[in-house]
């Protein structure tokens, strides 16, 4: 462990939160499949809705690299209808009511929704949610929602996630 401690303490390769999150998103795309109709061209469009915590980090991570042979395009938007054309929609700082409205709008469209440490994101109908630092798992997945969006998530990814199911006490 000394190797890690010594070198990390120099600050040489400590990554920032959003560098790591960008790298996760990049890899999520490698471990899931969209329905073929949705990916008829060679581009994965990542939409960042309203609040953008990444800054230039996301471009540095995505642009010029391919995930499953698809190039990335980053779109930042304030408009709900812009989300319809993307493969991945990312939400960071958002009020629950607005989120519910959006998730409802995206319901069953083949779009992967990713939440940034949003409480109850997966319970409310989001697919993948990042968890806060030092959580047992780094992200949580609601696979039922993924299926509703016709997105197939690799079991390898599911193994590393906290699995959230749709609320059972609904009636």
């Amino acid at each position, binding site marked *: 462990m000394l*190797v*890690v401690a010594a070198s990390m303490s120099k600050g040489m390769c400590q990554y*920032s939160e959003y560098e790591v999150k960008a790298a996760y998103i990049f*890899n999520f795309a*490698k471990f899931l499949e969209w329905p073929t109709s949705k990916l008829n061209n060679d581009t994965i469009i990542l939409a960042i809705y309203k609040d953008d915590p990444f800054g230039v980090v996301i471009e540095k991570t995505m642009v010029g690299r391919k995930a499953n042979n698809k190039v990335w395009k980053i779109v930042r938007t304030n408009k709900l209808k812009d989300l319809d054309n993307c493969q991945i929609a990312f939400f960071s700082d958002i009020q629950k009511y607005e989120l519910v409205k959006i998730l409802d709008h995206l319901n069953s469209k083949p779009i992967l929704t990713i939440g940034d440490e949003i409480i109850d994101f997966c319970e409310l109908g989001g697919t993948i949610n990042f968890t806060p630092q*030092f959580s047992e798992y*780094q992200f949580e997945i609601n696979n039922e929602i993924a299926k509703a969006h016709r997105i197939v998530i690799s079991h390898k990814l599911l193994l*590393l996630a906290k699995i959230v199911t749709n609320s059972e006490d609904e009636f």
Partner: protein
Amino acid sequence: MNFIRNILLVLFLMLTLENWAQLNSSEKRMLKNANSYFEHEEFDKALPLFLKINEVTVDYSVKYRIGACYLNTIYYKLKAIAFFEEISKEESIEIPTIVHYDLGILFHYTYRFDEAIDQLSKFIQLSSQNENLDKANIANAKKTIGYCKNAIEITTVPFKAEIDVLRHPINTMESEYCPMITADEQTMVYMRAVGLGKLENPVTSIMISHKESGNIWGNPIPLTLENSVKYAKLSVSLAGLSPDGQTIFINIGIGLNQDIYSGAIKQSKIVEIKKLNKNINTNFYEGRVSISSDGTELYFVSDRPGGFGGTDIYKSIRNRRGDWGAPINLGEVINTQYNENSPFKHPDNVTIFFSSEGHKTIGGNDIFKSKIENGFWNEPENLGFPNSTKDDLYFALNANGQIGYFSTSKNNIYNKHNIFKVNLKDPIPLTLVKGVIKLGNPPKPGKVEIKVYDKETGLKVKYIYNPSPETGKYLMIFPPAKNYDLVISSGEFLPQLINVYIPYQTYFYELYQEILLEPINLQNNTIGEKITVNNTFYDLYKTYEADSILLDDLPKQPKYYDHLLELVENIIQTSDTMRINYASTDNLKQHEKNNVESLLNLIEQAIETSDPVTLSILDANTRQKDKIKETHFYVDGDKSKSLQMQIIGTDTIYTAPPIKSMSATSLLPASTLIKTEKPLVESNFKLSAPSKRNYIHKYVVYYDINKDKIPKSATKDLEDITQIIINNQAIGIEVSGFTDSQGEKRYNLSLSRKRAQKVLKYFIDNNIEQNKIIAKGFGEAEDHKSGNSDKQRRVEINVFELKQE
């Protein structure tokens, strides 16, 4: 060290010329010419001839003269050693006394301290027997013996520091010196002299370089002065840099009459150049400058009368008007009869570094350190490790006390300086806050002022931080275990009070802070403002804790662990070799790319092999962003009524409600590090007392006679209101329906209710919680009874913020 002495007058009669006979006629002629040149002090012409003769014969007088020629060059003095040493070992001949002196000085230069003491002692002994007492040289010999004794003492103490010469593009074949860094070590300014030893007037310039990703210094560019024509006939050199990099100091003058000017760096230009006041600048020499991190103290060098001799270090304190007060000599503990130079006040505000030719030096200028204790400077300590027998100057240290920069001509026969970096491995517990502040929508840098108060003592930190209006960047340095209030003022927004707690720590850490101030607009009115504070910690030592947390789990999963180590090692190796193989911008980009690549691969591998441990360690080592967001709505929609009185120490100030910045969270144990969202407003809007409602906006929908349908013209405005409510937890609305005075009262009451209910339904359909809407029908409106009934048929929407206890 001055070798220009009258060495020629020494006679060589005692040296035998027994080999004269061995020379052929042309060689004899050559020797004759060489001696003639030598006697006319044309050493550069004599030297090559002597060297040729030395190849064909052994002649001690020739060897002596070669040594003497070398001694009179500028850059090759050390080559004299071999020749002098050879003749000094020859017992059969008697050598001039002065050779012992020269040899002693040269031995000292080359760290052969014991031999230097021998030779110099011999010189003193022999020359004191001589009637023509060589007083100056005897004094210098005694001083040099002192240096050697110091050096033996100082250089035998082992040091832990690592010293590296900076690579291209900072150091070149030319001379680089006088490095100065910002406290965060992201910007360096220094001097470069081109043509030293080649041109009669070497060209000097002030250079600037910024750190690029991968911790590598970027390509330096020269800084030029605004209105440089004005200074064309004067010499311009670098004098100092403030820890936040906002102020640069330069020396401008002729010869020894240098003055200190301040300026700001704007891209490749030094702008706003101003001469410091008459307390600082006199008709004498004023040189290098260091300003304390809080901006209140200025240390500078001057040879004005009244000092202890040579150049001394003075201190000036900023007075109430923000100008520099009368300077105080730092006193005889710091200043000696020799020159003191290049002061550097560390951001810890207790340590000063400076160079001196006095004190316990090992030769030339050495770098010393002194701390202030109970208001007094303690005995300066020779820094030891970076100091050489030559001039060591311009020491500057970053805020964490680990990385220092200095320049020295050590190991460089051309007397050219190079810039070195030293890693002291001994951090100082301070917190460096690097921030950026932006205003408006979209947020842009602007004119902002940040005042800092120490909460415990109630004292205002004297320095007012003015973030650069171009970039919005600022830099502050705080000692640990303190509570600070930052008051941020900018013209268009309410003054904001942000509390920052700097926890107790025994080490150094950096906090990256981003402050955004945005207006909240509703229907062309600004009804409030939103302040967002992002804190990201770059805690260099937290990783140890994180590691130990993980270590408990490790034995269970050795396989994962090995795998991780290998991966992490790969990352480290990639970055480390990149660091060592410094290089062009292409390589830097490559380096950054490799870092991203490593991270992507690390995560991909971890997913591929379903390896949670790697992800946990990565998680634990990630720098976190900590975000605080507050929205202030203006009271009654009026900005001026929205200020709260704050009493800090003796000052009373008016600001928006204070914001607590959770700076301490990253240092809490992991278990408490679960991010908590601000508690949701549980209060029932409907039951809240009207006094708890802060009305921020009023909107009125008007209706045609007997209609309850929301007119189309109102839709856009209702959408805006919806958005404000959705975005803000504490916002509710009162929806009040009214009718005109025509018709039956009962009917009108029912109609007013219907109008209010339709508006209520609109909001509920748009995802507004019913709890936030207080809808009521009031029947006939009491106003406009005798006048315009169009204004009576209406629904009033009052947007309010529910005040919290």
